[in-house]
């Protein structure tokens, strides 16, 4: 009986519970009619806010969104800022003032890939693992089309044991760099896992130039046992 009395309280708490943001790796994809292979983070933002209907090379573009979920949350976090409610309100303001349309919003990666593949100028985003043969993946550069400059570089330590045993090679890392230039997260993409750990510890201390938004950079760090 006591539990039943608590039910309204639980419902109210759940109703007002904060939104949980789930991280996901994403990539930006485009229809084959889009000439560019790379696009700046600020262009991505402008396209999805319907401020741009064409890229600098004159290609017509049309944004395609995923409905709310981890991929959409990651895209918001990465490129647009704000919440999904903010974004929907932004679109509604365009729609109800006669200044724009509600963009296509689809339910899954597969639907986005299929729509982008068949729609001229479509630009969308999907999780990084999604395979889409009929679409192109756009490289997203740092803010305003400029590569982010590395300002502070810390050399990784090469563990003596591995060096003595001639265990080396190249470690590939994917870095998420915050707007202020700090490295927010590091993911080891390939290479010896111990060297990977050492490299990751070093790059976490790197500092890049500031940007409008978070960007993703991939770096390769060689460990040469002969040096």
């Amino acid at each position, binding site marked *: 009986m006591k539990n039943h009395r608590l039910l309204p309280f639980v419902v109210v708490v759940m109703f*007002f519970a904060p*939104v949980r943001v789930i991280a996901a790796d994403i990539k930006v994809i485009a229809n084959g009619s889009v000439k560019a292979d790379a696009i700046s983070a600020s262009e991505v933002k*402008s396209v999805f806010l319907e*401020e741009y209907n064409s890229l600098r090379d004159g290609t017509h573009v049309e944004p395609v969104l995923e409905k709310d979920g981890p991929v959409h949350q990651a895209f918001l976090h990465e490129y647009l*800022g704000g919440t999904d409610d903010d974004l929907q309100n932004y679109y509604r303001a365009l*729609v*109800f003032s*006669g200044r724009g349309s509600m963009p296509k919003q689809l339910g899954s990666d597969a639907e986005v890939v299929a729509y982008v593949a068949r729609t001229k100028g479509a630009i969308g985003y999907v999780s990084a693992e999604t395979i889409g043969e009929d679409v192109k993946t756009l490289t997203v550069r740092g803010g*305003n089309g400029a590569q982010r400059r590395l300002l502070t570089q810390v050399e990784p330590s090469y563990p003596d044991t591995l060096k003595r045993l001639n265990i080396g090679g190249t470690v590939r890392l994917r870095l998420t760099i915050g707007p202020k230039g700090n490295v927010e997260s590091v993911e080891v993409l390939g290479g010896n896992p111990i060297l990977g750990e050492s490299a990751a510890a070093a790059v976490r201390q790197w500092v890049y130039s500031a940007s409008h938004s978070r960007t993703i950079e991939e770096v390769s760090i060689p460990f040469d046992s002969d040096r």
Partner: protein
Amino acid sequence: MYKRILSLVFVSLCFHAGQIILQAQEFKLLDRTVQVHGFFSQGFIYTNDNNWLTMNTSQGSAAFTDFGLNMSSQVTDKLRIGAQGYDRNLGQLGEYHPSLDWAVADYRFKSWLGVRGGKVKTTLGLYNDTQDEDFLHTFALLPQSVYPTDLRDATIAHLGADIYGNISLRYRLGALSYTAYAGHRSDSIYSGYPHYLSSFGAEIKSFGGLQYGADLRWKTPLKGLLIGASRLNENITGKGSAINPFDLGAGLVPYSESSKADWTNQFYGEYTVGRFRIDSEYRRYWRNQELFRGTSESFADVRGWYVSGAYRICKRLQVGSYDSRYTITNTVSGALSVFYPPATDTNLPANHDYDKVVTGRVDLTKFWNVKVEGHFMNGYGSGPYPNGFYTQVNPNGLAPNTDALVVKTSLNF
């Protein structure tokens, strides 16, 4: 217990059926997708003293309804067309006479250059073009010093054309958006100003004229900060008939008023950081009218500004507050000056309206919200240009202070 469960199931079914109906609709026409969107809002206002916004709010009034429906389609990569119908009833205004809110053909050559023509919503400050869409705003009533809902017709749209565009600035200097426009404004005879004139025995047949202006806004390099400025020039003529003020028994005589100078400057800024948003606007409206074919002249200087803050506590709940300040000064020259002594002291309640507001907004779903808002007003800024308080619903005069409770709900799809 059984009945309670049944009623809960019934309410739940109705709610979900409503949600399904409220999903945005789209259909194909001539191989083009046509989007359909709409909204509806219903408010209730109770005031402790003066009647407000032409409603009998001191008794509590729900004559505060509006709704709209639009259709639009992207015809080609660059051409989009659409139209929206709008209707409202606000006390003695609107009275459910539907209007064409906007109807545009929008051709976008480039991101930095587009043209839209038809009946176009006027870009003026942060919220002029979205002031009717309650669901877009934290507040049930936008600051009335800058966005008087009874006078929406004065600025809401023009029949003409805009050129507009977005320009990304180099060297990380942010981005600019510009709009320049010209067209014809036409006020409904069911809108606030003709209603105000009717209290002097005037019956307005037509009210409108040329409207042209521009807006420039800058998304600054500081993330979340936008600043901008708007300018609006007008040449307005109103015609109808009125009681002859010099001979009340002589019946109706032709009435006319026309602009000698009529302009609005508006400056604004908005800053959003995380769940917090603050915005502020200042509007100055200068109005110099010739009355009764030039026999008299009226000079009105209307100034309004507000500072507003809103914080989203969680996904469903937002709170906000604003301080809104409105002043009006007026002088009349010529024959009518005997009836209208100069009104220049903005400390008098007749010449100002200061409104402190607190609000709470609950989003029940993505498409349905409820707002509860308190207004604590000092002054009633009653003329010669109205600002919410009308003599028709306050025949015994106006008290200096008004507190109001506003409850409003809106749906959109």
